[in-house]
């Protein structure tokens, strides 16, 4: 098992190296330069050249790349053009927002998606099954951006049930954030109003973000449960007189949830791309919004840094899923 993990970690090195080159090239291929993004039509040629010189943008590309790489390995991603703060600080500052949002979305997806898939399979061919299949198809195809916008328009703007921007009501003063996880901060500081407010701010963006994973999880669960229900061991269990609850727990779900676990892990990447759109619509100050704002401001260092870190996390999470899969399923256990 340890050798497996080490081997997988070593594979990470060329993957990240390749990614860093691709990212570096892509970001530099974007039109416009940070100097002009900073000064607009006021920029004179001399000023642009001076900024480029000071930023090292006038040096050969390979030198710029090597300098970038040398810093990255020391977790120095440079300074953000948008905020003039270290990129690493911006990541640390914005990560809790996206983490809170992602976890909530994934929870909604699992808590709703797994039972939905399960019951659809049990009632195979009924209206519930058809509704689940159709619903999940819509869930997969509906653009996150559109859904987020509609949710916000109906439930925040028109009905006023939920707040429509940010993580916390702006007029809520004297709120402390010791951890940066606003829901948790409310609990830790005993400020229940802030706690509840933070939860309300999560609801709509989390639902928008949850739709695609929810749809996929429901479909995979349904398919897996259908497969398992036809297995001999389920029939055996039923025929030897076990209660349906026991059959469901011990035989059906335990086996059916194996593929679902893998799928949940893979949803992480989708959640990140979804977060960019969802956070923009809800002005939710997380990693996704920061990346979205980095493009028009030509914030090279932030784009490179954030995408590199997200990609690393993605690879690591997949590794964890693979390892977990091995632990759950004796058939694929690596020795």
């Amino acid at each position, binding site marked *: 098992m340890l050798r497996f993990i080490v081997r997988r970690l070593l594979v990470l090195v060329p993957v990240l190296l390749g990614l860093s080159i691709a990212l570096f090239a892509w970001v530099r291929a974007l039109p*416009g330069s940070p100097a002009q993004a900073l000064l607009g039509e006021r920029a004179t040629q001399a000023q642009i050249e001076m900024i480029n010189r000071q930023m090292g943008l006038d040096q050969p590309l390979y030198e710029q790349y090597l300098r970038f790489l040398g810093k990255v390995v020391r977790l120095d991603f440079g300074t953000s053009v948008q905020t003039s703060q270290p990129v690493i600080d911006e990541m640390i500052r914005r990560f809790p927002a996206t983490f809170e949002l992602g976890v909530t979305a994934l929870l909604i997806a699992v808590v709703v998606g797994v039972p939905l898939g399960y019951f659809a399979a049990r009632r195979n061919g009924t209206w519930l099954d058809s509704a689940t299949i159709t619903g999940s198809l819509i869930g997969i195809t509906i653009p996150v951006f559109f859904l987020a916008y509609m949710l916000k328009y109906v439930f925040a703007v028109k009905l006023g049930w939920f707040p429509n921007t940010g993580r916390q009501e702006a007029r809520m003063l004297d709120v402390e954030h010791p951890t940066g996880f606003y829901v948790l901060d409310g609990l830790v500081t005993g400020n229940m109003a802030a706690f509840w407010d933070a939860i309300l701010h999560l609801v709509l963006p989390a639902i928008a973000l949850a739709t695609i994973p929810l749809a996929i999880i429901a479909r995979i669960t349904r398919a897996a449960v259908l497969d398992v229900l036809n297995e001999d061991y389920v029939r055996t269990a039923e025929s030897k007189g076990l209660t349906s609850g026991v059959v469901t727990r011990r035989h059906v779900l335990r086996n059916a949830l194996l593929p679902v676990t893998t799928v949940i892990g893979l949803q992480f990447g989708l959640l990140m791309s979804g977060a960019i759109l969802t956070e923009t619509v809800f002005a939710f100050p997380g990693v996704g919004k920061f990346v979205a704002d980095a493009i028009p401001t030509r914030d090279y260092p932030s784009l490179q840094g954030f995408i590199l870190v997200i990609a690393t996390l993605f690879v690591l999470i997949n590794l964890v899923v693979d390892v977990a899969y091995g632990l759950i399923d004796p058939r694929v256990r690596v020795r």
Partner: protein
Amino acid sequence: MEARKRLSAVAVGGAMLLAVAACGGGGTGTSSTPGATQPPAAGGSDKAFVWALSAEPKALDGAYVSDGESLRVIRQMFEGLVGTKPGSTEVVPALATKWESTDGTNWTFTLKQGVKFHDGTDFNAEAACWNFERWYNFKGAQQNPAVSYYWYTVFGGYAKNEDASLAPSSYKGCKAEGTDKITISLAAPSASFIAALSLPSFSMVSPAAIQKSGDAVEMKGDAPEFTGKFATEAPVGTGPYKFVSWQRGDRVTLQAFDGYHGEKAKIKDLIFRAISDAPARRQALESGEIDGFDQVEPADVDTLKGAGFQVQERSALNVGYIGFNQKMAPLDNPKIRQAIAYAINREALVQAKYPAGSRVATQFMPPELTGYNEGVTTYGYDVNKAKQLIAESGVANPTIELWYPTGVTRPYMPDPKANFEAFKADLEAAGFKVTVKSARWTPEYLDAVDNGKAMVYMIGWNADFADADNFVGTFFQQFNKRFGFENKEIFDKLNAAEQETDAAKRTTLYQEANKLIMDFLPGLPYVHNKSFVGLGKDVQGFLTDPLSNENFSLVSRG
């Protein structure tokens, strides 16, 4: 870094949150309580005022920023020696009660007495000169144009220029006389610098606070980084609001300053929140989460008004124009330039493509500024006149290259391609052959225009400060590659106007300059547009300002 210290807190928090989530995740239910989003604060004027910015401020030290959103926040906490009358471009006393100069080179300011900074220290002559010397002595990354843009624009270089491309400074020194008088000396006479001093970038900061918190800037490879804490964690000025906190990515919180020397702020808590998405700003206003925001989309104006929200018009100080490069034939021919001017239907374009209230420009500066001349040659739309001028010009089948930028909208040019198409059709109707040239706004387009490679091009200007010099002085006071002409009469007139300290004489000189410019026709100004500010139903006392210098201390709730 404070944020790095928070890394461990974040990690612990993450683990705890996961644990909470694992224990059932009951907190994610979709039940809702109508009205639960209402803030707990009491209503009336105690309710905090929330303004949505389109971007987070970069830093809260005016000397280090030139972007509008940073300056908007800074404006509430800081004051300069001079200011502008709320809602107008008129330069009025702020921390200086009066100023005078006999030669335009040495300017004596009399300072207001009894003014305290938010940290309790005194604002006096010594502190004022200290501020000027601080700017003048900027070093290293502080000299980067992305950092001290306005100092460089107004005063040229620094005590010791560290880059060969920097110009010598026009600032010579500041001398304190007693506690209430300072004299600022310049290298050459200038009257425009008084208006420039009203920029929030020339705000007076507390010397003690800078010494305590630090104002270092470092060039860390890719961008300037404000490593000193003054600009990010502890800004201290003399304004009606004082700094409370800046939760990055979330909000900047200010509070009314009890010791303010002028009329105190009416609303106690002032909060700025960045919402970069334009529709999201409008919706936040509609739902009552914010009390106001700038740059309302023209299409939303009627919707907001219909729903009972206030929409105020701002006569933005800008100009959109078509530039002519006289280094390229046939633009060196005045009759061809005039033919273009008569050929283009500016009224129709402004009416069709710009928000209601936008005005057709007759000269290179807006009518709000002193020196505007009602009597310039105006070149009303007249195709036959244009054809006649082409015939008189001696240029057979004149061909012009018309440039427009892609990938950009500017306040004076919301849709460059639409403008381009209208211009092209008009020019062709008058008998010009038009070659299409387009390029990305940055870097190619601005590059071509600034280096004199574009023949006829669409561009414009947003004012930095309310003075004719910021418009016609910037464009035409000396040879400019964009326009490619030498006209001593215009250059001399503008130089004389910039140096003239007598206000009446100065106005006349700029009026004469505008007449000369519009006769010579180095380009065709076509629009001064409007922008809109959206406000909550109960907001009172908000005065839109042509330079977006709105003063939030005047705002109250009805």
